[in-house]
C-alpha cells in the first residue's frame, strides 16, 4: 500500500501532471491563458509521431512474434466489448436515455492516445520497458467501439445517420494515419533510424508533453466550467468507476497474452481510457441527437484527469501486484 501511495504521490508531483493541473486551474479561474489551435495541433502531431516512431523502432530492435497479432485481436475485442459494459453501467447508474448512454459508451470502448502517451512516460520514468507494438494496439482500438455504440443505439430503436464517408473518416483520421505511419517508419528504419532523429523525438518529448498537457488542462477546465448542471452525481460516479473496470478487462487480456509488466500496464491504460477526438467527431455525425456536453465532459473533464492523476499509478500498482514485477 505504501508503494502505491509513493507512486501516486510521485506521479502527482511530476512535471507533466503539474502542467495539466496548471492548465486546469487557470481555466477554472477564468485566466486568459490559452494555447492557439494551431500550436495544440502541432504539439499533438509531434507526440503522435514520436510515440509511433519509438514503438516501431522498439519492434524492430526486439523482433516480432505471434503476440502482436493476438494483442491486436485482444484490442479489437476490448474496444468492441467495453461499450456494452459501459452502457449497462450507465443505464443502471444514471438517467441517461439509450441514445446518450450509447454515445457515452462508445467513448469508453475507444481510447485516449494522450493517456497512453502519459502512461508510457510514467513507465519510462520507472525504467519499465513495454512492447513497442502496443502503439498498433492503441490505433486498432479507436474504431470498433463506435460500431458497437451505434449498434446499441439502433437496437433500442434510436436513429443513426450512417453513410459510407463516415468510415473513411474514422479509419483514416489523421491521428491513426500518423501513429501507424510513424510506427511503420520506425519499424522500417529500426534503431539506426531512431538514432538519427533521437535528439528530436526522445530528448524533448517530456517537455512537449508538459506543454500539451497544459493545453489539455485548459480544455478540460473550460469544459468543466461550461457544463455545470450537465454532470449528475451518477455520471460523475460512472466517470471514475468505469476506468478501473475497463482496466480490469485490460489486465485480464494482458495476462492472457503474456505481456510484460509494461505491456500489461499499457493494455490496462488503453482499456481504461476514453476517447475525446475520434469518437466525439463520429458521434456528431452519426448520432446528432446525443448531447455532446455529456460525452465530452465525461471523457475529457472527468475520466481523463482521473486516469492521468490516479488511474495510471493504480494500474501500475495492480499490474505489479499480479505479475510480481
Amino acid at each position, binding site marked *: 500500500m505504501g508503494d502505491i501511495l509513493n507512486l501516486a504521490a510521485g506521479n502527482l508531483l511530476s512535471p507533466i501532471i503539474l502542467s495539466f493541473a496548471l492548465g486546469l486551474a487557470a481555466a477554472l479561474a477564468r485566466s486568459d491563458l*490559452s494555447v492557439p489551435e494551431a500550436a*495544440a495541433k502541432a504539439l499533438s502531431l509531434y507526440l503522435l509521431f514520436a510515440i509511433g516512431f519509438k514503438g516501431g523502432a522498439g519492434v524492430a530492435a526486439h523482433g516480432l512474434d505471434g503476440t502482436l497479432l493476438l494483442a491486436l485481436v485482444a484490442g479489437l475485442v476490448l474496444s468492441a466489448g467495453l461499450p456494452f459494459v459501459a452502457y449497462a453501467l450507465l443505464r443502471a447508474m444514471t438517467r441517461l436515455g439509450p441514445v446518450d448512454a450509447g454515445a457515452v459508451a462508445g467513448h469508453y470502448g475507444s481510447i485516449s492516445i494522450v493517456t497512453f502517451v502519459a502512461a508510457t512516460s510514467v513507465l519510462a520514468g520507472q525504467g519499465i520497458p513495454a512492447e513497442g507494438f502496443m502503439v498498433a494496439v492503441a490505433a486498432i482500438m479507436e474504431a470498433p467501439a463506435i460500431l458497437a455504440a451505434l449498434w446499441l443505439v439502433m437496437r433500442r430503436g434510436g436513429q443513426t445517420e450512417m453513410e459510407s464517408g463516415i468510415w473513411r473518416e474514422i479509419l483514416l483520421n489523421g491521428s491513426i494515419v500518423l501513429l501507424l505511419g510513424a510506427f511503420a517508419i520506425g519499424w522500417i528504419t529500426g534503431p539506426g533510424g531512431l538514432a538519427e532523429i533521437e535528439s528530436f523525438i526522445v530528448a524533448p518529448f517530456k517537455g512537449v508533453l508538459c506543454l500539451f498537457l497544459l*493545453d*489539455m488542462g485548459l480544455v478540460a477546465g473550460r469544459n468543466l466550467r*461550461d457544463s455545470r448542471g450537465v454532470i449528475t452525481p451518477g455520471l460523475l460516479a460512472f466517470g471514475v468507476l468505469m476506468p478501473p473496470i475497463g482496466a480490469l478487462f485490460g489486465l485480464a487480456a494482458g495476462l492472457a497474452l503474456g505481456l510484460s509488466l509494461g505491456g500489461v500496464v499499457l493494455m490496462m491504460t488503453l482499456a481504461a481510457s476514453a476517447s475525446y477526438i475520434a469518437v466525439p467527431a463520429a458521434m*456528431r*455525425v452519426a448520432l446528432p*441527437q446525443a448531447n*455532446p456536453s455529456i460525452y465530452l465532459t465525461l471523457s475529457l473533464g472527468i475520466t481523463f484527469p482521473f486516469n492521468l492523476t490516479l488511474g495510471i499509478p493504480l494500474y501500475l500498482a495492480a499490474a505489479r501486484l499480479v505479475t510480481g514485477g
Partner: protein
Amino acid sequence: MQTHAAKRVEIIIEAPMERRLTEALHKAGVTGYTVLPVLGGTGRSGTWSREGQVGRAGGMVAVICLIRPDRLDGLLDAAFAVVERHIGVVSVTDCQVLRAERF
C-alpha cells in the same frame, strides 16, 4: 457603381459536418461558397471554442454563400437536408453584389 440584389446565406455548423454540407451544396448546383473558422460562441447546445482543440469535434465552421435570389430555395433545401438534426444556425440576409454574372 451598378449593384445587384443577392442573398447571403450563412450556415454555422459543426466542423465534422462541413464536408457533408459542401457536398450537398455542390449537388444542388451551388459551386461558390466560403468556409470560415469560428473562434467560439455559445448557444442552446452549450459553449464552444477553437482554442486548444486537438480534434474537430468541438469546433464549428461558417459556410457563406452569395447567390441570386431565384436560387435561394434550392440552396436552402439542400442545406436543410444536412443541418436539420445538427447543432447550428442558418440565416439569410439581403445584400448587394457587384458583377451579378458571378452569382
